[in-house]
């Protein structure tokens, strides 16, 4: 079973993502900020990271930059999910290391479809 880490400071969002992904048969872990996410990922790498931008302590950009620097983790795809919809925000996300940049509110089937694409899973 593929293992996904959802990184968001809002418990509601984490629960929302977890509901969608677990219904589809993925295993989901949660982290409340970039630091916790890094700690968790370093202990046990995940198959996909879904990252919020605006978080306390270490935000999504910071997490991705640091994450891409880690030898063991850097090759894993990461989706950045955020409310910042501007084109330059997207460029920032890509520059920081995201493989995909999605805008909230993200619909359940959208999230699922992109997750499958990035993980190479057939529906």
């Amino acid at each position, binding site marked *: 079973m593929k293992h996904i880490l959802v990184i968001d400071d809002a418990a509601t969002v984490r629960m929302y993502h977890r509901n969608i992904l677990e219904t589809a048969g993925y295993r989901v872990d949660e982290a409340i900020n970039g630091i916790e996410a890094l*700690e968790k990922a370093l202990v046990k790498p995940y198959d996909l990271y879904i990252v919020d931008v605006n978080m306390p302590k270490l935000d999504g950009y910071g997490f991705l930059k*640091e994450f891409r620097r880690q030898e063991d983790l850097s090759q894993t795809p990461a989706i950045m999910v955020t409310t910042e919809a501007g084109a330059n925000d997207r*460029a920032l996300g890509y520059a920081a290391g995201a493989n995909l940049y999605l805008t909230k509110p993200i619909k359940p089937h959208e999230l699922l479809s992109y997750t499958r694409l990035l993980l190479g899973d057939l529906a």
Partner: protein
Amino acid sequence: MNNLLEQFLSEGRDFLQGIGEKLMQLEDEPNSTPLMTELFRFVHTLKGNSGLFEFPEMTRVLHASEDLMDAVRNGRVGYSQDLADQLLDAMDFVGMLMDEIEATGEISKNHAVPAAEHAQVLRSLLVVSESNADSNSDLHTSSEIKSEVNSLLAELPIFELEESVAEELYLHALEGETAFWVEYKPESDCFFKGEDPLFLMRQVPDTLWRHIILNNTAPILAEMDVYSNQLVFQLLTTAPSEELDDLFRYVPDEIKRIEIPALAFVRPTGNQDDHAIDIDFIDNALALLNKNNISVLTQIINTMLELSAPELWSSSVLRWVLRLLEHEPDNKTAQHALLKSLQTLTAPDWSAPAEHVERSDSKEVEHATTSVNVRKTEEDDELLQNFYVVVNAQREILSLSHKSGFSWTAGRLKSIASTLMGCYRAVNRECNIDNVLERALAENSPTPLLTWLEESLANNEQDVEIEVETDFSEISTSSESTPNALISDHKDAHENVVHNEAKTARRVDEVSTVVPKTLKVDQDKIDRLMNLIGEMVVAKNALPYLANRAETVFGVRDLSREIKAQYAVINRVAEEMQDTIMQVRMMPVSFIFQRFPRMVRDISRKLGKEVELVLEGESTEADKNIVEALSDPLIHIVRNSLDHGLEQPDVRLAAGKNATGKLTIRATQESDRVLIEIMDDGKGIDPKIIKHKAYEKGLIDETTLERISDQDAINLIFAAGFSTVEVISDLSGRGVGMDVVRSAVEKVNGTVGIESQVGKGTRIHLSLPLSMAVTNVIIIESNKQIFGVPMDMVVETVRVPRSQIRTIKHKQTTVLRGRVVPLLSLNQLLARGVEQLPNEDDEFATLIVRVHGEHIGILVDEFRETVDIILKPMAGILGGLSSYSGAALLGDGSVLMVLNPRELI
């Protein structure tokens, strides 16, 4: 209510609390960047959360707040008290919406208008301060406002327009003339002010559509007041805004005016019942649109129009498509959406597609499994579309380095390759990327991957489609900004990279993670646990009785001892359990203290007074019920202090005091009681005024007036119906006085006292029990019945010899340590008509109780032991007996009635 919603509400309340606190802190340090960032994050996250549900009213207000806070954070808008006021108001509104969601599961439609008003006010702060900001942010704001307007638009009755009128308006709007929707809601007594609403509306030039509706519901004919206005007028006009301003200059508050973008008029009309247009035709048309083959598209649409009846809804859609093709040839998105609407049979929603779709989506999470098969083909379509989104994202990333020139790491390249491989695998396409990746890794350059990707895409012969799909993907991924995407252009992509560098340069090990190990539990569950513990304590108390019976009735002494030993164990565990549960119920008084900074600030500003609020001992804990019961009395006292106690700054200066008044609220714990003190350094209470007031109100007679001490006079403010201020202000003195405070405090076994010095200030102190779960009572016997009396009211127990009882003015009294104590017989109080029984030495058992600060002796027959009981208020008709505070079960199963001496005497 589902779990996700509960989670949202519970988390949302925390955020609101946080926002309030941060705003208060900002007031002290208006330039603190960390505070602003934190504040922005709270608002931002809350808005993000609300977007998961269909609460457009809430999201709208939060969105406006977020934009405002963003502007404040970036220094584009200065922080001001007015701004804080508006934000606090908006958050109160959001809190109110949350309460409503919690109660009813939804938000009533009535809130749409206040929500729009809140958003409007917040945005006006933004616009005013941004008028001289750079053009880029201006663009942003105005498009934001447009999206605001658009979502309002969804509620307007434009769909009732005839197609020809709509077309005319659409063309006008396209030509750059602004179309306004005007709603005029005259006051009900407008006829008496010389207004003629109908005439006024007929004055509006260039009106293309007019409509009159009833305000609210039609009143019953018999009750209808024909002289009051019940109507609301609506119209659409292309008149210039200055002209409208001029026309409505006398009634600006009753006018709602909204500028309407051209697309909003594109609403197909007609008969929708008939069967839909052939699927093949729609697919064909969409394909032609994608290939940009407009001439053929126009041709087939015209043919179709000739074949179908003109009054059909689908015909209307097709006519609109033709108009769009003619007048807005570049707006492929809108054309596409219109054609798509032929499939769905619902008009494209130009305003807020995200919110609209969300309703079905949140259900989708729950029903995902059931509906999978039905939507299989749709999902495949979506997967393919998303495939191009992801692939294009990789292309964008790979091209990125050319411009910003950052160095590539192996991991980054691998992540892109693995993403591409995943994508291709998911849609069953070949992806031989391994060699390419190795070359890229060797060169440490994205170029091989980019070249491969471009080639692969070209080979797919679907370049046209990809371009189109990419356009749409932009819209679908930025659903919130859809209206902007339809109306305005994108911003430059790479302007902010420098900013980003700074943002991400933080060090990882700067802060360590602290995950609070707390659990949020429903209070009902704790209460249930508390009740169960109570029952267990009672059941446990049966064991000593059982031991006694074993010994006296059955004569088994050993068994009795064993039962007693076991009882000791159970007793210890039960007591520990009770303590633990009580600990759980304990909460810090900061729960109520935290609202005071805001309240004191609001009130003092309203009164024009300067007040410094000092809070002490906020971490002092007490039972939840006690803390909650404390809330209203405290608010009342604080209001009193602000309103009557503290003086205006000039008065204070004249009296030689600091212009800023000081209000201190302090909580401390003393053994098993919580003490709360509220102190102000205001003008104090003048006993003379109190005395006269009390005399005028008939609360005291003339002799008392002469003799009463100053302290006793001040205590009179606790008397029922006492209020010294003639003019009733909206802050305090609404006919409820300090007597209400006292009864509220006494209800939870608390006491209240007051000290005051004229000119120096006032100190009010409350003393409350830490917990009210367990009550310690003394059991007394009277007339062969047993009763309980709460121990915290009992001063002492004495035996008074009959010879010591004197009768003064037909009332029995005795002198106890030099103090005259009135005596009352319990039998008399309970109207038993029997004398109390003295003991062999002719002494009466007397319970000295403290009632309203006075000592009173109650004669009873005999004292028994004291016990801890769980006091249950009496239910039903017995609940009306105020001389009892409740009943409790004793260990032997009998019921103990607990007296309430305050009411009894």
